[in-house]
């Protein structure tokens, strides 16, 4: 069967073809659709692996480890930021190794298309001593995912499977059976505290030695596979070394160059020293094509140095290629031209002004109501907006950083808003410090800093914007999602009970579309002392829309509108835009976009806005 699939989907079907027994992950662009596809598959097929969105990436990795340590095949999925969350366990498990095939899928994002640091997770393969595979296209992803499980079992180590956005989101045709190949296995776990615990320095140092042995055993496996293609031309002066998606561009451009050797890697860690040695000896220069950090470049530079070879290594460290960003054909073409002294870098691009479409909440989004209410409450409580520091957090809720709200001041990592707020509050500002965080982010990593706040008697206002879903990444279910909407009989965890159990000084649930009451509650909480938590609860407009209609929309009486723009200034709703009405400009509401939240209605002093019907 042939289908057009993305790299993420190919990874999902590769894992299914390998008979994966358990899949756990946390959503994060650009990795999300791998697990989403397995969920979809399991909802349509009786015969499917256990698959879950876990509370956070560390939990996902731990759950997967339990399965792998039972001799089962396990897959954990996350983006690079999630790898950081899971890293504590990843390091520990790397030292212990695995019995069942264990694949850790991490997606990196060169060019930061989805925001967050331009982190290179390949360094984690070095840090944790994990074998790593980096497919460069859909077909390779499908095949190498299956191979990754075999490699993991053969070596006894978890295998890092790393994609970049261009691969995980890139789509192409795949010929496969798109089926689940269940392997009948009995769970087993031999109790062995020297392997599965860390208590005792001897245990740990021995495990370190084991880890290095496992890593060493990879080289032979790589050499006997077709994963790394060494095309060495005798007498060639230049050799181009690339990995993952860079291989595709090399394949595209290299035919135009005569007599250049090439090495295209998909098994990238550990580096195959044995096969690289003659190549380092026989070429005048090597051009290394890799996005983000000079991982391969450093390894080859150090090998050349250790062997006392004069080969010139061109890459990032000598300035041949840019140090940051995603590489395009353009970068590779000019590097090839520079390294080979032939060909040209291509025409200079046309330049143009950059216009920015500021991103904002969807129309009808409850977060719009919460930030509107916060802005109004700050005023009502007698503070100035410029004096009230608001720490934001990851997810849709961070869009409160943009106009017209201009609420959030900072964004660090999952759950960090609550800890950060405590540090700001302890620094002596005499105005309140507020943290805003979404529901999924709160469950993920918001609870420990809240516990800290209570224990340390912090003085902060935490606003949890609870829309019931993990929306930013595509509306995944989370622990707080309505029980009736939880798949497969899963349960809902009560956020309210959790927060109250922690012992916060003040707790209240508000409704973001009931502006008067929300403003009242927020203004009161701003003036209080201690740990105050307000949960602003209303379902995500887009998930709600899938199940029920919003009823008649709002509209603007063009006679009455004075074009004061207050509705737009306060709500910023995307359904509002100026139109020409006879001689004058007035505001209007796009009926296709209005989701009847009524927020704009609360802004108009001229009674121009009303609900239809």
């Amino acid at each position, binding site marked *: 069967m042939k289908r057009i699939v993305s790299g993420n989907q190919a990874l999902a079907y590769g894992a299914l073809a390998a008979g994966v027994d358990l899949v756990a992950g946390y959503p994060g662009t650009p990795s999300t659709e791998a697990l989403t596809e397995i969920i979809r598959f399991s909802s349509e097929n009786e015969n499917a692996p256990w698959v879950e969105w876990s509370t956070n990436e560390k939990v996902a990795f731990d759950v997967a480890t339990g399965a792998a340590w039972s001799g089962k095949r396990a897959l954990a999925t996350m983006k690079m930021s999630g790898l950081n969350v899971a890293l504590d366990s990843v390091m520990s498990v790397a030292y212990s190794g695995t019995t069942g095939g264990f694949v850790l899928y991490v997606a990196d994002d060169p060019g930061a298309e989805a925001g967050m640091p331009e982190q290179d997770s390949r360094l984690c393969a070095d840090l944790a001593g994990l074998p790593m595979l980096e497919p460069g*296209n859909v077909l390779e992803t499908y095949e190498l995912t299956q191979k990754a499980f075999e490699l993991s079992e053969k070596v006894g180590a978890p295998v890092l499977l790393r994609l970049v956005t261009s691969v995980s989101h890139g789509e192409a045709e795949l010929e496969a059976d798109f089926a689940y190949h269940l392997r009948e296995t009995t769970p087993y776990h031999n109790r062995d505290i020297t392997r599965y615990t860390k208590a005792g320095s001897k245990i740990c140092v021995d495990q370190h030695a084991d880890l290095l042995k496992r890593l060493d055993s990879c080289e032979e496996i790589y050499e006997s596979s077709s994963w790394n293609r060494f095309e060495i031309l005798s007498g060639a002066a230049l050799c181009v070394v690339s990995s993952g998606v860079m291989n595709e561009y090399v394949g595209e451009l290299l035919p135009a160059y005569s007599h250049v050797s090439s090495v295209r890697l998909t098994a990238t860690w550990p580096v195959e020293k044995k096969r690289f040695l003659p190549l380092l000896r026989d070429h005048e220069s090597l051009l290394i094509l890799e996005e983000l950090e000079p991982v391969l470049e450093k390894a080859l530079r150090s090998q050349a140095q250790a062997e006392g070879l004069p080969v010139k290594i061109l890459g990032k460290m000598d300035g041949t290629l840019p140090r940051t960003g995603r590489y395009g054909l353009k970068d590779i073409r000019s590097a090839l031209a520079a390294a080979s002294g032939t060909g040209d870098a291509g025409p200079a691009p046309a330049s143009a002004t950059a216009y920015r479409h500021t991103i904002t909440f969807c129309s009808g989004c409850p977060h719009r109501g919460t930030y509107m209410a916060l802005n109004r409450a700050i005023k009502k409580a007698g503070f100035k907006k410029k004096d009230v520091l608001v720490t934001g957090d990851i997810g849709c809720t961070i869009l409160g950083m*943009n106009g017209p709200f201009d609420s959030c001041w900072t964004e660090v990592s999952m759950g960090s808003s609550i800890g950060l707020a405590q540090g700001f509050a302890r620094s002596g500002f005499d105005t309140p410090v507020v943290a805003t965080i979404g529901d999924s982010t709160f469950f993920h990593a918001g609870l420990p800093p809240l516990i800290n706040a209570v224990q340390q008697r912090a003085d902060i206002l935490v606003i949890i914007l609870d829309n019931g879903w993990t929306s930013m990444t595509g509306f995944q279910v989370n622990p707080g999602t309505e029980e009736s909407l939880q798949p497969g009989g899963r349960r809902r965890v009560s956020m309210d009970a959790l927060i109250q159990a922690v012992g916060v000084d003040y707790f209240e649930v508000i409704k973001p579309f009931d502006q008067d009451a929300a403003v009242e509650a927020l203004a009161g909480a701003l003036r209080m002392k201690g740990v105050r938590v307000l949960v602003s609860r209303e379902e995500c407009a887009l998930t709600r829309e899938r199940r029920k209609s919003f009823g008649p929309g709002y509209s603007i009486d063009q006679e009455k509108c004075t074009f004061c723009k207050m509705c737009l200034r306060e709500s910023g709703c*995307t359904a509002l835009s100026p139109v020409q009405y006879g001689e004058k400009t007035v505001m209007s509401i796009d009926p296709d976009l209005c989701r009847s939240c009524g927020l704009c209605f609360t802004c108009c002093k001229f009674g121009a806005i009303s609900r239809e019907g």
Partner: protein
Amino acid sequence: MLKSVFLTGVGGQGVVTIANLLSAHLQDSGYKVTLIHATGMAQRGGRVTSEIRYSDDRDRPFGPRISSGGADYIIGMDMAETVNSASFLKAGGTLVFQNYTLLPSTAVLNKESFPDAEEVKRVFAPFTGNLVEVEPSVRPVNMFVLGVFARYWPEAERLEETLSKKLTKRVEENLTAFHRGRDYRTEA
């Protein structure tokens, strides 16, 4: 032959839909195709791009992304994003753009200027082969613009068949918009 189509716009304009249709059409016509959408913030009014690359040589390797000066065609649904994408067009390439700009609320409030059709032409004219402006007069606009594009795209033969096969919702309406686009008069 290796060619590239770059599509751009903002969330909600159906850029991804027409890119998927073009990709499926090329696939059905026997080309080797890659497609990548960048829709990170689409739902929230942000920039959307789709990049299609295709070759009649199915064994030919090529990377998935279009780099500057690499697009034979650009389809622009929003003029700000069209201007932002100018560097992608090959000299002598074709631009089909919709005369429409989504103004973010902050732009309305701060009176920021956003490009009009004149600016699009000023930016593209010096190096563009076919420069085609489309007035958004027929809905759904994405299918209408696709129809206009089909006139300038040699691979459009039997595109209609793909559309009838792949469209699942409001098929008649979509096909009508596509036909109106094909018949659209432009002063190219």
